[in-house]
């Protein structure tokens, strides 16, 4: 069974507040870049599936040539191979542009199963993998918390929605996005890091997959930082904790938030 893991390179979550509007406009993000934390769960799951089934795993990313670092992290964790779709010559795309490129790459890999994180910490869309499934005509299950079984060409999973846990079975090939509950991603081993650092990762320009610039159906405009929360904290003083509690309750009742 061939498992493709879709990963994205994103800013480190601790550095997201540093990202400026100009960074986003230009696409040149001045922050430490890492593998999207949600995608680490997908990488880990692909490796764990290898313990249960006969699995060949490949991580694929679309991005600038720098995104090979995210792929090397996946390799260091233990996926079997990696491939980059180089989007540096591409402009004016959107979610579906990325999805079209990834779908073409997934097809070329002959994948039976696509795993990915449920969203990225930068675009926060959780939509590109739906586009991959739609373009390939494959079934999709999002927010999966457990892969129960893969047999007879069917995959059975559990997933969480608000207020309920669903157990769903779909035929392969399929696209699955995973949530944080599914596993605990491993730290790459020293040997893994050494192996990954030596790996030569093949890179394909998006144009070679038939992806054209300017095909986006949406544009981002008026990119800006949200207004800073300007509050002056009123520290509630009092001789006893009871007095402090009473004063705080007074203040909150006056705010009309209770």
């Amino acid at each position, binding site marked *: 069974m061939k498992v493709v893991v879709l990963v994205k390179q994103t*800013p480190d979550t601790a550095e997201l507040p540093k990202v400026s509007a100009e960074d986003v406009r230009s696409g040149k993000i001045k922050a430490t870049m890492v593998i999207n*934390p949600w995608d680490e769960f997908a990488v880990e799951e692909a490796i764990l599936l290898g313990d249960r089934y006969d699995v060949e795993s490949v991580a694929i990313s679309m991005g600038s040539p720098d995104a090979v670092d995210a792929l090397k992290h996946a390799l260091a964790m233990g996926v079997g191979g990696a491939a980059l779709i180089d989007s540096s010559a591409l402009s004016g795309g959107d979610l579906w542009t990325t999805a079209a490129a990834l779908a073409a790459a997934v097809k070329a890999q002959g994948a039976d199963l696509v795993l990915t994180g449920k969203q990225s910490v930068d675009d926060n869309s959780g939509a590109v993998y739906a586009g991959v499934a739609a373009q390939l005509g494959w079934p999709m299950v999002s927010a999966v918390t457990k892969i129960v079984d893969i047999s007879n060409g069917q995959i059975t999973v559990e997933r969480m929605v608000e207020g309920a846990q669903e157990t769903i079975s779909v035929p392969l090939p399929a696209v699955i996005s995973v949530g944080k509950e599914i596993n605990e991603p491993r730290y790459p081993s020293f040997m893994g890091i050494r192996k990954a650092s030596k790996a030569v990762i093949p890179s394909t320009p998006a144009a070679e997959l038939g992806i054209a610039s300017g095909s986006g159906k949406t544009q981002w405009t008026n990119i800006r930082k949200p207004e800073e929360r300007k509050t002056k904290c*009123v520290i509630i003083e009092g001789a006893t904790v009871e007095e402090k509690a009473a004063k705080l309750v007074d203040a909150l009742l006056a705010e009309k938030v209770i």
Partner: protein
Amino acid sequence: MSVLVWIEQNQNGVVPNSFEVLGKAREIAAALGTQTVAAVLGDNASAAESVRPYGPDVVLAITGPVLANYRLSAYTAALRKAVEAVGATVVLTAATVRGREVAAMLASQLDAGYAPDAIDLRVENGRLVAVRSVYSNNILADVTFNSPVQVVSVRPRSFPMPEPGAPGGEVRTLDPGLSENDVKEKVLEVKSTDTGEISLTDASIIVSGGRGVAQDPAKGFALVAELASVLGAAVGASRAAVDAGYIPYKHQVGQTGKTVKPDLYIAAGISGAIQHLAGMGGSKVIVAINKDPEAPIFEKANYGIVGDLFQVLPALTAEFKKRLGK
């Protein structure tokens, strides 16, 4: 032309966030000079009556045995039928797990522009503009569309819950034209995880606990839950508390947890790491309770008590009980 809203249902009936979206949809439809259509999907049309008081021009009941349980491919196909039937140019869903995946799948299949998890909507020069909060709430962007159909999922609590009025709008029915063979997914089980507690994304008040409970985590979160119960609030937690195993992940607020926007957020024993602040910075009023007067949470808070949550929380609970007559 029309603005189509998917009215999501679960085991408890209509998901209230759908009504928030419907309320805004009426405004958008008025600005576009068109009508609002609320799509209700299921094996029967019984939910249609509960939608009429929220004022759509049309309630479109799409019914059939294949739609008995929510399944992504079946619901996407039925909504595509609805888009065609009512000539929808704008399609809106609540950005719940199901609302997000069905909106993404529908938009991709229609090759339509999609704005996920939008926090605001407006019409400018006769065109829809959606506002997105990206980079984990550190950047805002206006999303404009150049496709004939525009699809948006809307973050819960972005718009006020509309007041129900006299039932209006006509109920129309539509056959989805789907048979069981058209649907790839089988739902083997739906287990309710609803324990009667208020969900974080719907809550108008949240009481959260963090690493400050460490000396006795079980007691600490019991105190958090007691205050939450008196206030009718949801229980939240920092990532540190979740990672330490004090409380399940579904309570986590922040960058890799939930983004919340309550009227009141009480953070007990939470230092205020930027990943946490990104998830709750939109709260109207923030209260911080922390032993450390230098904790970053105080910089974002409106009110603070410097003290031990093990003493402050019971005092607050007692005081609220007294004032609220509970």
